[in-house]
């Protein structure tokens, strides 16, 4: 399976390669024997039912939760050495939006590593952050307290916080969940812009209908890898049925979804 997922034009080290990764919480494994090599310059959707381990995959790759076994390499090295090349957008629900900070303050947090220990944030850092907010269409809201932003706007703030890092690989955990149409379009535009710059993005995605439209490749996951590769070959009815199992309603819909995706 890993050999299939490597694009033929990849001659440099892949942005992310996962080998035999198993992750367990408390007693039972959540994801089992994941083997995956991410292609450079592609937008990849991570798709699977609830509890399939999509977020776990990202969090374990980023050393945020311990791995039971397996190796993960970013650009040929361990994550702790390659952090500067990896941008991470956590789930919006993971923080308390009542926190006393503005949108700009949150984006500046993405630059704290560059600012360094114990040193204050300088005007040029704020300027960089403001540029990133502008890229996601949020410059007008820079000084608003984050609770007073809509869900989509909060998501865009998180995206901007990852963008300021100017990374080469972006891992995003459900950026499209519960956002408005304007935000969805803004995120898609950013993703395409990143791809045109030769960057890679792995995005946990819920909406099967837009997979073919937004992404180049998919990772179908349900505690194990079902299939990976280009949307055209891997995002098939058969594979979706293997991923979602007996959820009949959904499987019935998949033909329609696939038909819509490939024609559109």
């Amino acid at each position: 399976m890993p050999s299939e997922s490597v694009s033929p034009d990849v001659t440099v080290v892949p942005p992310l390669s996962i080998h035999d990764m198993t992750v367990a919480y408390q007693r039972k494994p959540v994801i089992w024997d994941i083997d995956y090599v991410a292609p450079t310059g592609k937008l990849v959707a991570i798709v699977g039912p609830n509890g399939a381990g999509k977020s776990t995959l990202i969090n374990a790759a980023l050393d945020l939760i311990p791995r039971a076994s397996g190796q993960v390499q970013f650009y040929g090295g361990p994550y702790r050495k390659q952090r500067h090349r990896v941008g991470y957008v956590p789930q919006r629900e993971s923080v308390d939006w009542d926190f006393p900070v503005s949108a700009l303050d949150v984006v500046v947090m993405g630059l704290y590593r560059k600012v360094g220990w114990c040193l204050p944030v300088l005007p040029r850092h704020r300027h960089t952050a403001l540029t990133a907010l502008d890229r996601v269409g949020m410059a007008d809201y820079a000084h608003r307290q984050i609770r007073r932003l809509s869900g989509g706007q909060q998501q865009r703030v998180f995206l901007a916080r990852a963008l300021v890092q100017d990374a080469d690989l972006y891992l995003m955990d459900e950026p499209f969940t519960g956002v408005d149409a304007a935000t969805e379009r803004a995120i898609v535009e950013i993703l395409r812009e990143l791809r045109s710059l030769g960057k890679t993005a792995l995005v946990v995605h819920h909406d099967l209908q837009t997979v073919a439209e937004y992404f180049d490749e998919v990772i179908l996951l349900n505690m194990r890898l079902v299939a990976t590769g280009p949307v055209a070959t891997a995002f098939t009815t058969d594979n979706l049925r293997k991923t979602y199992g007996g959820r009949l309603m959904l499987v019935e819909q998949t033909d329609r979804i696939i038909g819509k995706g490939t024609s559109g």
Partner: protein
Amino acid sequence: MGNNHFGTSAGIAGTFLLLRKRSLLGDVVGHASLPGVAIAFLIMELHEPQSGKWLPGLLIGASLSGIAGMISTVIIRTCTRIKEDAALAITLGGFYGLGIVLFTIIQKLPTGSQAGLANFIYGNTATITQSEVDLIWRVAIVAIVAAGLLFKEFGLLCFDEQFAASQGWPVVLLDLILMGLVVAVCVIGLRSVGLLLVVALLIIPAASARFWTEKLSHMTLCAAVIGVVSCYMGAVSSALFSRLAAGAVIVLTGSVMFCVSLYFGTRRGVLLRWYTRRQLNQRIATQQLLLAFFEILETSVPPAPHQSLTDTTVSLDELLPKRSWTAKQLLRSLRDAQRLQYLASHSEREYRLTAQGETAARRAARNHRLWELYLLQHADVAPGHVDRDADRVEQVLDPEIIIKLETALFKKYPQMAVS
């Protein structure tokens, strides 16, 4: 003076403790320090009689058992299925009980040097010696400087620990430093405020400050000021009235400042919230009134292009059945609308729109109907981003959607095309 430094450091450390959602951990540290004080006293007495009340020694003992209490809480929470609140209650009660038992034993010792040890429970500023004050303010300064240096790191840790970890910040170390600061502040507060109330001085200034600001730096500053003022008032009053427990007065001052903040806070105070809610209700009432005017006028005035709506009067009897409002509510809304110069009263029960009112009424009707259509046609969208209060639909929706909606709107209500 040591008191004021303590107040500052308590306000600052408390801000982060509050934002880390660990307020009660301060209480655990306070209570858990009691057995440490007792054990330190006993060890020092054994080592050299009459030396048991050497403050640095007692404070080290207090810190160690405070830390032990904190660690026990974490262990109980992570290694068992017991929830955080129960874990806090168990350690708090257990350590405090142990401390009280040890204190009872100490009281029965024949050394006679144990008098005043109970000051750690309730605090007593009157009997603090100069060397003790020097120790307190030095520790407080160290805590303040540490918090100042690690300000942005602590902020990141409290806001988004996971992101901080993904960025390579040593979150466990930062957390330990932060909790270390909390322990230090608790321990230097024992002597003046006492272990029962020390948590109040950590949390009250921070919680009060939150009502005044939406900025972390301002909140920290504000909490520090409230901490200082509380401590100052406490010290002054205990100097003026001997026998008045300073610790209690300090905490009471803080509580008063909390109440003031709760009501008058300029960012999230109760009065402000009440006022914004009233404003919103009033705005909605005005919108509904204008909508009612428009609905009456669009049927009575022929729908010719650029037909003015300002010439025709609308009577109270026409308005009343439009919505389920009482005559009293309606009259109040009419008064509000007149004050905003949307309406002019024609006679006792007759009103007409002003030019300004016509513009507003047309806009209200357009917004209202566009939203209705939008919700009909896009029922699958999250209703969370439908903002009916927005002045114009354009601020929220895409231009393409608006063009589609308007086409549908003009088909349904041809008379609206003129606006």
